[in-house]
């Protein structure tokens, strides 16, 4: 009974195998190409996600301490920072002289109260110069950032962060909403833009209001160096950063008494080696590792299948050689077959990666709060395609060597 079943199985298997030969071959080619495609998608995706996440992390750091190259300017005496207004006055002509377009102060000032429908909001204040937005990539969600013109307007222009905006009832910016600000004095300001919230949580903060330094000084009590700190930043070309820092330091030192120490130093992340996204790096390495194994398996199965098809075609190869195909031609032909297949799979794989990274949910995950979302990194797509073509070429070489060694005489002899 068992023997009968066994023989039946053998016969059936042989019949089915014969019947399916061509079709099975195609399915296996397809399977291995799907493997190549998925692996390429994973590798491309990992590389691309890495560069997007890197952008996100870099932007985060730059918001904190500036883009490359940012110089921070300080003047201290024994008691701490000296009068920031004086520093600004002395810096102004130097900035002009050295042609520095981007320079800004940032006053970490006293809270200001905004009149809202539900009462007074005690918001944090961020007083800056117009250049600050570009220097720190401040993410403006609605409306616009400050312009030079805002400095000359009588009614102050302000931006609020999302938390403050919501607390104010999310007024439409198209309708030029105004808000009454109370400090030492009070004024009515136009809200020109909304900024994404920076490290403030809704529970702890009623939001932040951004205003120009001069407007802040109008509203707030006189600057007390003990309470409010002022950061003065210059954003300069990286190549000139050091020379400019030295020159400005020298000029300022000449204007202050020796008891005051003047510092002009780079403080952007690039200056101290940049922050590496180590956690992400491990994730990327893991993804690339798994993808490499998939790729290896797919390549092996591709080699296997191409081998089989070459053996099937020994007679055909012999005939072609009898009619003038050189060995090189046969070799390249077999390699090309494999390359065309994997290149096609590679294009599909890259497309999958592009689509996956276009997905808002995935974007949110890897590049939280990016101001300048980078387009799909071309480098990653190139890496993916090169990997695909490379795998095709490597997988094609062995079968191609077999094809070249076909002896014409034997191939066409019956």
């Amino acid at each position, binding site marked *: 009974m068992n023997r009968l079943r066994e023989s039946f199985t053998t016969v059936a298997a042989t019949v089915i195998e014969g019947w399916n030969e061509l079709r099975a071959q195609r399915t296996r080619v397809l399977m291995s190409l799907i493997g190549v495609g998925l692996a390429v998608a994973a590798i491309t995706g990992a590389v691309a996600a890495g560069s997007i996440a890197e952008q996100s992390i870099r932007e985060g750091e730059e918001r904190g301490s500036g883009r490359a190259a940012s110089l921070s300017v300080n003047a201290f005496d024994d008691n701490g920072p000296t009068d920031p207004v004086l520093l600004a006055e002395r810096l102004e002509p130097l900035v002009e002289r050295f042609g520095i377009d981007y320079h800004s102060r940032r006053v970490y000032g006293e809270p200001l109260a905004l009149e809202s429908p539900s009462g007074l909001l005690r918001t944090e204040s961020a007083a800056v110069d117009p250049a600050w937005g570009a220097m720190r990539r401040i993410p403006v969600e609605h409306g616009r950032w400050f312009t030079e013109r805002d400095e000359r307007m009588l009614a102050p222009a302000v931006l609020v962060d999302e938390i403050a905006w919501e607390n104010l009832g999310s007024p439409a910016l198209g309708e030029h909403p105004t808000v009454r600000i109370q400090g030492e004095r009070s004024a009515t300001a136009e809200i020109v833009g909304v900024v994404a919230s920076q490290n403030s949580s809704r529970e702890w903060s009623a939001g932040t209001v951004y205003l120009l330094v001069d407007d802040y000084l109008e509203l707030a009590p006189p600057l007390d160096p003990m309470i409010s700190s002022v950061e003065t930043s210059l954003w300069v070309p990286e190549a000139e950063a050091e020379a400019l820092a030295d020159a400005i330091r020298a000029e300022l030192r000449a204007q202050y008494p020796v008891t005051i120490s003047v510092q002009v130093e780079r403080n952007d992340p690039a200056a101290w080696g940049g922050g590496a996204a180590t956690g992400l790096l491990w994730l990327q390495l893991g993804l690339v590792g798994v993808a490499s194994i998939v790729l290896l398996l797919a390549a092996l199965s591709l080699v296997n299948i191409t081998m089989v098809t070459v053996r099937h075609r020994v007679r055909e190869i012999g005939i*072609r050689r*009898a*009619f*003038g195909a*050189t060995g090189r031609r046969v070799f390249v032909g077999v390699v090309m077959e494999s390359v065309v297949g994997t290149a096609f799979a590679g294009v599909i794989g890259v497309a999958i990666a592009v689509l996956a990274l276009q997905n808002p949910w995935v974007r949110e995950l890897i590049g939280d709060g990016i101001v300048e979302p980078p387009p799909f990194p071309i480098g990653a797509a190139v890496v993916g395609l090169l990997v695909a073509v490379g795998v095709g070429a490597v997988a094609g070489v062995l079968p191609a060597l077999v094809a070249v060694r076909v002896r014409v*005489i034997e191939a066409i*002899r019956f």
Partner: protein
Amino acid sequence: MSLFRLEGVARSVRLPDDSRLDILAGVDLAVDAGEHVSIVGRSGSGKTTLLNLLGLLDEPTAGEIVWDGRPLSALSSRDRDRARGRDIGFVFQQFNLLSGRSALENTIVPLLYAGTDRFWKRRSIATAMLERVGLGERLASTPEHLSGGEQQRVAIARALVRGPKLILADEPTGALDVETGARVMRLLDDVSRATGAALITITHDPAIAALADRCYRLDAGRLAPERSGAAA
């Protein structure tokens, strides 16, 4: 000057028991451009081995083949591949067409290796050649849908499509009935004369051998002029 010349050509193979089998010995033969030569011989007498040598598919173990004025030993394998594609067309007993490929695609094969001009005109050249062998209506038919005689005519079209100097036909009628074989052979003879190609035909059939200008007999690896063929 002769198209090719064989001088004392021998071909032997080493058998698995390490003994030597001499398939051909001391073969001398010179064929001029456009000449038709037939070779008869019993099965196993070395005819195919001789044809493989003439077709630059094999090398002699002794002697020299002078092809188009150059000794074969001076040509690289790449040169030989090129010369074969350019100058030689094969017609086999078993047709050796590519299965599943149409008559047109089969006839196109040699043109794939024939350089730019003919590559781009391959369809029209191959179509003209198939019309010439009477298959203008069967361009799209695969070998599976062609009779033996038709398949051999496709093979003749393929052998001649690059305009070779030499056609090597190894028992071209061996798989056909007598009448079909005679017609196919006459076609091969006519078309190769019209294109000026030399033709070497291996055959069992004295009537077919008689179509040639000269007839040889191969016996136990030795080539000798065939008196009866010349007389007939």
